[in-house]
């Protein structure tokens, strides 16, 4: 029943445009690119303070028919199955349109199978890295930090400006089995029970390519 999926493709800065063009040739309609930072677990890089890598994230909807061609393209032209080339994953979605405003009922939409989960954590700015460390201790392999901001809250300082609270959004793709423990660790480690500290949610992931843990099966879980 999955007729389309939203694909997240995380690649090094500067490659997303090319990717978007190729995807459009294959049949995707439009995509949106945003910037993020990857994190790699390496002790000496961490010591030197250079453990971040700059990434671009392409969010693109690909129709079900083109899905296979799309993944082949990622593998053959962008070599995503190799290490450090980037990762891709798919989340099923439904798009709103006026003609089909009915809601799916019952088993209709459950036919997809989601071996992975994408955990999204929204935190205050600057805490993304700490969150990543907590998640890594709980078995996560890698993650991407995206700088975002909350909706503006007008405040009365000297000038009436709408302060936009800056946020870090941490995106972690992991196996479904490890997801609960990572989620719990983040929840406890980042003290999300405090009001306003942040939120965490998971998206079902039907397909992945190039995940760190797939490339390093020996270290899949601590």
């Amino acid at each position, binding site marked *: 029943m999955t007729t389309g999926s939203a694909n997240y493709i995380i690649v090094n800065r500067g490659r997303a445009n090319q990717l978007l063009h190729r995807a459009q040739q294959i049949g995707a309609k*439009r995509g949106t*690119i945003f910037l993020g930072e990857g994190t790699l677990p390496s002790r000496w890089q961490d010591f030197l303070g250079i453990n971040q890598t700059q990434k671009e994230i392409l969010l693109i909807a690909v129709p079900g028919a083109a899905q296979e061609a799309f993944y082949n393209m990622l593998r053959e032209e962008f070599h995503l*199955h190799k290490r450090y080339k980037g990762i891709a994953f798919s989340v099923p979605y439904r798009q709103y349109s006026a003609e089909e405003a009915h809601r799916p009922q019952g088993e209709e939409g*459950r036919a997809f199978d989601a071996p992975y989960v994408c955990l999204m954590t929204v935190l205050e700015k600057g805490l993304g890295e700490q969150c990543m460390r907590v998640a890594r201790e709980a078995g996560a392999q890698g993650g991407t930090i995206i700088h975002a901001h909350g909706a503006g809250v007008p405040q009365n300082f000297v000038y009436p400006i709408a302060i936009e609270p800056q946020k870090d959004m941490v995106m972690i793709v992991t196996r*479904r089995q490890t997801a609960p423990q990572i989620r719990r660790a983040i929840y*406890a480690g980042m003290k*999300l029970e405090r009001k306003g500290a942040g939120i965490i*949610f998971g998206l079902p992931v039907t397909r992945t390519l190039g995940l760190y843990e*797939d490339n390093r099966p020996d270290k899949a879980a601590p």
Partner: protein
Amino acid sequence: MSLLKQKFGEVLRSLLPVMALVLLLAFTAVQPDATVIWRFLIGSVLLLIGLAIFLLGVDLGMNPIGDHMAVEVATSRSKMKIAFIAFLLGFLVTVAEPDLLILGYQVQEASGGAIGAVTMVYLVSAGVGMLIMFGTFRLLASRSFPGFMALAYTGILILSLFVSEEFLAISFDSSGATTGALTTPFILALGAGLSRIKGGKSSEEDAFGLVGVMSAGPMYALMAMSIITGQKHIQGEAAPFMIQEGGVMGPLLHYLPKELFGSLTALLPLAAFFFLLNFIYFKVNRRELGRIIKGLIYTLLGLTLFLTGVYSGFLDMGQLIGRALAGGHSMLLPLVGFLFGMIVVLVEPAVIVLGQQIEETTGGRIPGSIIKVTLSIGVALAVMLSMLRIMIPALKLWHFLLPGFGLAVLLSFRSDPLFVGIAYDAGGVASGPMTATFVLAFARGAADVVPTANVMVDGFGVIAMVAMAPVLSLMIVGAVFRRKTRAHEGKEGLAVPQKAALPQGEIEFYDCVVAIVNRGLAGRAVELAREAGAGGGTILHGRGASGHDMKVFNVEIQKEKEIIFWLTDTRVSQDIAQHLTTQLELDGEGSGAVFMMPCGAFGLSHPVAIGLSEEPEDNLLQIAEPTTAEDLLPGSLEQEALAEAEGLAEPEEAAPEDSPEAAAESLEPAAEAPPSATEEPPEPPETPPPAGE
């Protein structure tokens, strides 16, 4: 690709053309000693290493400091405090700039002691402080930026009528000296931080321009000083030219401790001010503080290596090339000047920082390359015209500066607002340490040999030209850009509505609703969604392509988008989508999209969106209000999720709430994987049990 490697690559790409051109000239026209060539090569290596480390330091140290300062300034509740911090920041980053002190001594000497070097440094710093203060108020009060700058430049124009040509050159030069390698990245970061915290529709345009504002400060200070003290003439003697002594390594050993000391003094006041404010207000956590300190150390080391490389390797080479060309092949001077201007400016530290910041701020929509190309063409023309000025005595500095700045100010009202800020910044950014050493040495070398040239006026004028030309060239591109965007926007919005994918997904408790809208609409979208029952959203900056993108100079400009994530109750997500689509007219191609992803329902054992009470309480209630509160957010469930997350409830297996099939699946993911997944590397046969079970 690690960050350091990336920086090295970036610097190397800009440095290689410079090395190629210099070596080509060295082996053909100039033929200097082997020593000079070796020094140049060693200097290049130092420059490469130093600049890469410096850029890393800016990322880790200067940018966060700028951010924290910006938050403190913008969220202040008293005008006095804003004024005080902004002034002090401008003052402190300038007062310790080593170039400024050198210039101060030059002026002191030339004026026969009438103007003290230290007095001048304080005056110029105060000028910068004042202008940063005005610039900050301008930004926070959302006054027109082109208007502000037009006013600032009109003031300079009026003052310039009263000062001599020498003083005019010195004033512009001091503006180049204050926008040094350290100051510019910091002020850039400050501006970006201020605009980010201020937010709103113009947050992008506001991110730039503060450097441009700052560079007017020294001009005001010096011209005012000239008028008040009645000091008109400066008889400068440029130091007689000689190749530095001491073999290949001599100059290097001479400059290394000197530059280390200079960079340290330049960095200290700012660092001290940061630590002071950190102690009183920010109180950043230990890890971030450690990172900032590492960043500051990188900045210091990088800057030292960079400047040592430039001084020991590039200074002699520049003068030698200038002299040799002026002596033997003077017709080549403008051409070589053009080429130097074009490629040398790309090695300026601040130019690289600016390019990065433009990409970050616009979410990658404006590629850094388009700015760099425009900038380097502007600087190339500036250096070429300076060479012509050295060769033809009838051409005066103000023949170029006056119409150049005049045109730029006029164009600023017709140019894309984002480009206006970047253009004014570019002047200060382009006249950095590479111009001040290498290009200036080249010009002086030429002026030395050409009999009609005045080393003082013509030599110094180069920096003024370099500070002017990119402002103009970027304004022109900005004007073209605005025309193109206007024309392009007219064409859109008529496309056929796209047919949506089939709805799918059994609805559990939460949906992740994602809306992609054009830039500037996010605020409205959040409001609309709130009306339809959503809570607060999280907004990202992105860029999108709809198939027909416009091109400016063959560089593709994509539309800027904002992406908004909401976590909503499934029962209202459809309403939210409908409300957004109809109100924002998201049906047309290229205007945006709304889609919903089932969330928390699969993979996680519970419908989890814990800690959703992130916004003020009313949001949570708003989610519940449309129907009945108990229906939508069963309290028991939430509590269960909370308890479980805290590890109070019994640890659960993979998916107790899922259907049995799902649980089975999760135990044998490989076996049940869809056929498409077979290409993936085989999964390990069994998953080790999660920790703690």
